[in-house]
């Protein structure tokens, strides 16, 4: 896997968000091509480039290919992304030539809601599209990232409001409302392979594609994860515990975070 895991875990304090970012970073393999969104995915991808995956290729939807930002970008169109890219292309090109034909290995997505079949909602909260309880930013690049990347990693903070049985709106498809829609539609990518949260890791069950708890963050109990999940969460027979960050990961992550004013949103 990664060189980091052979290193000794840190003895310093770390936050659950730091653990989540490090876990997300470790999920990225060297030399793979990654479509990155702003916020946690961008932090994790840039951490991976500075630790175990120096040849990781980063693509941002603003059209920057193979970018190597020296600091964390504040938005997907940050000037540092263009200045340090191998190439900069227009938005139609990034989606049509680079994402659509399957040139991107990993897509990294977050959202306001995710459901038991890995469908993501970033559009509206509430039953009424025309009269929503909360209007969210919308789709952005996510729907086509979810269908066309080789695989999708989802990173989200765990809470019952975010982890719902059925999303109010499918902005980006996981395995569909019944867990089988992805196969029916014949979508090119495999779909979500892992959901990384501040409490642990969920993966789709091999038979049903229902998200199942397969790993815990250090110090977290199964009941805590169940309480933060809006459906009766199934737990894998073999439940792992994440390796805490190493001193090196933590140091590099904190140095990275210090390079940007704030980082949320997309």
């Amino acid at each position: 896997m990664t060189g980091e895991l052979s290193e000794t875990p840190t003895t310093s304090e770390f936050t659950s968000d730091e653990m989540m970012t490090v876990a997300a970073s470790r999920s990225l393999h060297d030399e793979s091509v990654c479509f990155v969104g702003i916020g946690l995915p961008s932090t994790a991808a840039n951490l991976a480039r500075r630790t175990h995956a120096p040849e990781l290729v980063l693509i941002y939807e603003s059209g920057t290919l193979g970018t190597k930002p020296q600091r964390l970008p504040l938005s997907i169109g940050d000037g540092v992304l263009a200045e340090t890219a191998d190439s900069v292309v227009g938005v139609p090109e990034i989606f049509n030539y680079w994402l659509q034909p399957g040139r991107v290995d990993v897509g990294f997505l977050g959202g306001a809601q995710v459901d038991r079949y890995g469908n993501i909602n970033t559009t509206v909260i509430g039953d009424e599209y025309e009269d929503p309880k909360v209007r969210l930013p919308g789709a952005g690049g996510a729907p086509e990232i979810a269908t066309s990347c080789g695989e999708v990693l989802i990173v989200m903070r765990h809470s019952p409001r975010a982890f719902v049985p059925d999303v109010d709106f499918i902005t980006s498809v996981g395995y569909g409302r019944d867990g089988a829609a992805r196969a029916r539609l014949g979508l090119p990518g495999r779909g979500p392979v892992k959901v990384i949260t501040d409490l642990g890791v969920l993966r789709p069950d091999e038979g049903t594609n229902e998200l199942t708890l397969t790993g815990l963050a250090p110090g977290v109990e199964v009941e805590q994860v169940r309480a933060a999940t809006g459906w009766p969460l199934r737990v894998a027979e073999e439940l792992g515990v994440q390796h805490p960050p190493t001193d090196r990961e933590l140091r590099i992550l904190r140095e990275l975070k210090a390079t940007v004013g704030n980082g949320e949103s997309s």
Partner: protein
Amino acid sequence: MARILQLDTAVAELVNDGDTVALEGFTHLIPVAAGHEIIRAGRRDLTLCRMTPDVVYDQLIGAGCARKLVFSWGGNPGVGSLHRFRDAIQHSWPVPLEIEEHSHAGMANRYVAGASGLPFAVLRGYAGTDLPEHTDTISTVRCPFTGEELAAVAALNPDVGIVHAQRADRAGNVQFWGITGVQKETVLASVRSLVTVEEMVDELPEQPGAVVLPSWAVTAVAEVPGGAHPSYAQGYSERDNAYYQDWDAISRDRDRFREWLDSEIHEPERSAR
């Protein structure tokens, strides 16, 4: 050939009430000054198109210029929500706002179809999502060669396309580089177009790889130094991140927003460049 105009003249001539208007620029080179001039000109009932309606669209919507928004991601990049946009959708303030919602890939392809003189574009998108159910300009088409079903999106041909660029010469030939989003497609898809530029020069420096819009493809060019602020123009200015952060507090409150409109947009000494 493009006409070289002052910003206020260009907006007065090119943008009419009820028009479909696209101000594009992907984080970089956003034509913010042109947007402010549209507010100042008091335009109403506009259908505003933009992939990423951000702060300048929040301002246009809050000022009551828009009847409809065509978009794919509406937020304050790096900060959070657009409060004027939300207020218009959730509470119809100051006027109701209709929306037509796409993904980035869908919007980009709509401009490509528009620029290409085609009625629609084809992409592998939207499958499995709830977006087609709510958006009339998303449909499907069957490939005549393989029988595969694909997404189809209607061409977008705005009445007016407005973009910002680094520089132009006095004949109106435009040069821009860095993150170029859908700016070229927007100008080519639109019936009329306005390009605001950081700088107007006698002769364009050679810049291999720079995207050039020839004078004959553009309706008007206006010199507006700093016209992208608070976004940035690579080689000319940096993004004003504090402005985006400050906007969050200003836009949350209707009264604070009105004060902002009065002092920053309508105050006499600020009008007419």
